[in-house]
């Protein structure tokens, strides 16, 4: 099977720091790979290398079978790139932004206009198409930016934190656009620091931390790697919570977390669950909620890296500032 993107041993140094420290990744054709990691993990550096904007110091990568260094021009004609902050010309209207890209890609004036109208309609920007992009809201700019990266009908799409800084509604809208692209057979590499986003969209996930891949697999596989499931028990009478806590501690051998009126604990042996139920029944404690669920990706991430994904807002702050630079 041909791979849309394949990278082997990518290294990028900035002085002493290794932004990338030997990254391998593969995106099969038509699949979406989620690159998950905190700020500064090297996600953007990897995207910039794969999109031919940056040369790797070591390693090699191909996109659509073309080498990103030696055959950069061919790679560029296959890919679309949407960056962390919307790279649209704020002085131009939505239509002009898209027509410019179409003309640069060698389309005729008429074809460029037709394509621009098509994309604006698709991204619900038709009404705003004649206005300068600087008058757009954050979500509209982001959609225009995504539209700009689709003018040339790319086979491979790089989405570098496409929803960072967006409100929940715009985020969901963008997710449905990405799903639509997937249905069209586009291969996508999406970076994100939102676990939910990777969970929602990605076929496969690689987890970056400090320039290395520290885990990879499907969302379910990753959740299984910690080996644990989570048991949650909520008693009908809140006063029984202490009793529940004792029972759980006895059976599992670990004191549960008691926030939110629930006893929550990770279990490694599913047979412990019936034991807990029997003991509670014997004591006459009624549970309104009793569930055994997989660990969330958030818990997996914490287990893998020792810190949560959405910490270290250092570069995120910079990106947010760039967003707010006035026209």
């Amino acid at each position, binding site marked *: 099977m041909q791979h849309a993107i394949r990278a082997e041993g990518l290294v990028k140094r900035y002085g002493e720091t290794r932004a990338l420290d030997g990254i391998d990744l593969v995106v099969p054709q038509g699949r979406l790979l989620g690159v998950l990691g905190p700020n500064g993990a090297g996600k953007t550096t990897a995207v910039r290398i794969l*999109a*031919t*904007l940056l040369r790797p110091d070591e390693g090699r990568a191909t996109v659509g079978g073309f080498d990103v260094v030696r*055959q950069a*021009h*061919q790679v*560029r*004609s*296959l*890919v679309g*790139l949407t*960056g962390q*902050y*919307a*790279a*649209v*010309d*704020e*002085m*131009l*209207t939505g239509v*002009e932004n898209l027509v*410019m*890209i179409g*003309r*640069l*890609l*060698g389309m005729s004036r008429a074809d460029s206009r037709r394509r621009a109208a*098509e994309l604006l*309609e*698709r*991204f*619900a920007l038709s009404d705003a198409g004649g206005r*300068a992009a600087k008058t757009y809201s954050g979500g509209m700019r982001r959609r225009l930016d995504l539209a*700009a*990266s*689709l003018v*040339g*009908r*790319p*086979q491979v799409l790089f989405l570098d934190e496409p929803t960072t800084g967006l409100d929940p509604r715009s985020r969901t*809208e963008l997710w*449905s*656009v990405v799903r*639509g*692209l997937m*249905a*069209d*057979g*586009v291969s996508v590499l999406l970076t994100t620091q939102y676990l939910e986003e990777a969970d929602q969209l990605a076929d496969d996930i690689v987890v970056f931390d400090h320039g290395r891949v520290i885990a990879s697999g499907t969302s379910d596989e990753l959740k299984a790697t910690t080996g644990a499931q989570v048991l949650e028990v909520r008693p009908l009478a809140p006063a029984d919570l202490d009793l529940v806590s004792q029972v759980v501690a006895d059976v599992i051998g670990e004191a549960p977390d008691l926030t939110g009126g629930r006893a929550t604990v990770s279990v490694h042996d599913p047979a412990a669950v019936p034991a807990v139920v029997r003991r509670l029944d014997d004591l006459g404690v009624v549970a309104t909620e009793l569930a055994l669920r997989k660990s969330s990706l958030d818990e997996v991430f914490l287990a893998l890296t020792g810190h949560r994904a959405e910490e270290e807002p250092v570069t995120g702050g910079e990106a947010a500032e*760039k967003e707010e*630079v006035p026209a």
Partner: protein
Amino acid sequence: MTAMTTTAAPAGPAPAGHVGPLAALRQTMTLAWRSLVQIKHNPWELLDLSIQPIMFLLLFTYVFGGAISGSTGDYLQFALPGLLVQNALFYTLSTAIGLNTDITKGVFDRLRSLPIARTAPLSGRIIADTVKQVWAFALLVGFGMVLGFRVETSVFGLLGALALLVVVALAMSWMSVLIGLKASSPEKVQMIAFSTMMPLTFTSSALVPSRTFPEWLRAWSDINPVTHLADAIRGLLIGGEVATASMVSLLWAAGFAVVFAPLAIRAFRVRV
């Protein structure tokens, strides 16, 4: 958002490995169009381009003119060529500001991710800025004529002055490109522009005859490239010595290009 099924290109012919010269030219023109069409949506830029030189023209003619030359009419004849030079030199830095804005806003990266000639973003911008130079020249001369300025040579003198200014501005734009690539923000570019161009033009013979300067300043003014350029433009528009001043101006321009073009190209290669 309506569904559409045409996004993924079918497996077509293998993409070409390079950009042909004709395609590169078309891409350059598209990017030049992009810089010029901006004026339509940003009237302030148009005002920058038109109001500022006119304001300078009015200010210098009616406030200082009488004191400097005895009459505003005489001063206008003397100063308009100098104002043309001042405006052209200031305007070369708009190349730096535009380029720097593209870099900090991420538009430059978008353009670099497209299969287009690597030089197109640069050449497109320089062509657009040259068009804006010609527009500012026409505007200043036209407005000057309304106020009473007369071209005392010929239409060839006028065209020669325009040509000389454009050539010098193009040479200067290499320095502008370098600043645009290196500066951390458009605001910083503006500061650099102001703090270099302002003293250069005011210590030249562009706006006042240098014979009243103290000796040390006059010595500097005599070697200041702006003096030579202003003298050349003055000669071309109202008569007088042209050959030496033009030659010195062109030599300065060549020197500028020789020093700054390699530096700018190297900085550009690092970015591209």
